[in-house]
C-alpha cells in the first residue's frame, strides 16, 4: 500500500531540545505533545527560542519543528 507524502511527513520524527535535553517528536506536533514527550509539567509555559527572540507555544498550537530547534518550558512566574 502506498503511503501518501502527507502521511510520511506526519510520521517523521526529529530531535529537538527542550530544557537543554534532546527529545524526539513528530515534525508536525503541538505544544502539549512536546511537553508530554519531554516529561514537562503540562502547566508549564512552552517557548520556542529563535535567534534573539522567544515565542510562546500554546498547548493546542500546531507547529512544524526542525531538527535541533530549541524550546524552553518554564512555570508561571508571578509578581512578588
Amino acid at each position, binding site marked *: 500500500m502506498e503511503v501518501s507524502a502527507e502521511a510520511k511527513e506526519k510520521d517523521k520524527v526529529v530531535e529537538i531540545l527542550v530544557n*537543554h535535553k534532546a527529545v524526539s517528536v513528530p515534525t508536525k506536533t503541538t505544544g502539549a505533545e512536546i511537553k508530554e514527550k519531554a516529561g514537562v509539567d503540562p502547566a508549564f509555559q512552552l517557548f520556542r527560542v529563535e535567534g*534573539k527572540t522567544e515565542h510562546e507555544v500554546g498547548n493546542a498550537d500546531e507547529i512544524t519543528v526542525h531538527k535541533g530547534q530549541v524550546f*524552553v518550558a*518554564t*512555570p*508561571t*512566574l*508571578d509578581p*512578588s
Partner: protein
Amino acid sequence: MTDEQQQAVDSVRATFSEHAVDVAELEDGSVWVTVRGVDIGPGWNQTQTDLSVKLLITFPHAPYPFYASAGLTRSDGKATNPVPQNVDLGDGVIRSQISLRISSLPVETFDTTTETVAGRFVWVMAWLRSPK
C-alpha cells in the same frame, strides 16, 4: 563555581547562543549571569536591556530576583506589577530589580530536574515584552 552553577551557566549559554552571555564569579561563591542586549520592545525607556541573575553558592536555590539595566521605567505610563525597582546590592552597581517568582511555592524552590535557569530568563524576557 559549583557543578550546579556550571550546568546552569551552560544551559543559559546554549539557549541564548545568539546573545553575549557574561559570567562573573564572586569571592563568596555566587555567580552573576548576564544576557546582554535583550530586546524588550516598546513601552519602556530602553529598547534593550542587560538581564542578570545571581546564582548563590546555595544554588539550586531559586534564581530570584532578576535584574535589568538601571533606571528601567515605563515610558507609556502603563502600570506594571512588579514595578522594576532600582537597587544597589552593595557592589556600587545600580540595577533594576524585577521580582517574579512562583508565588505558590516557597521562594527558594527550584527543581533542576524539571526546569532551568534559562527558562526563568525566558519568562522574565516575555514579561518585559508584554508586562502584565
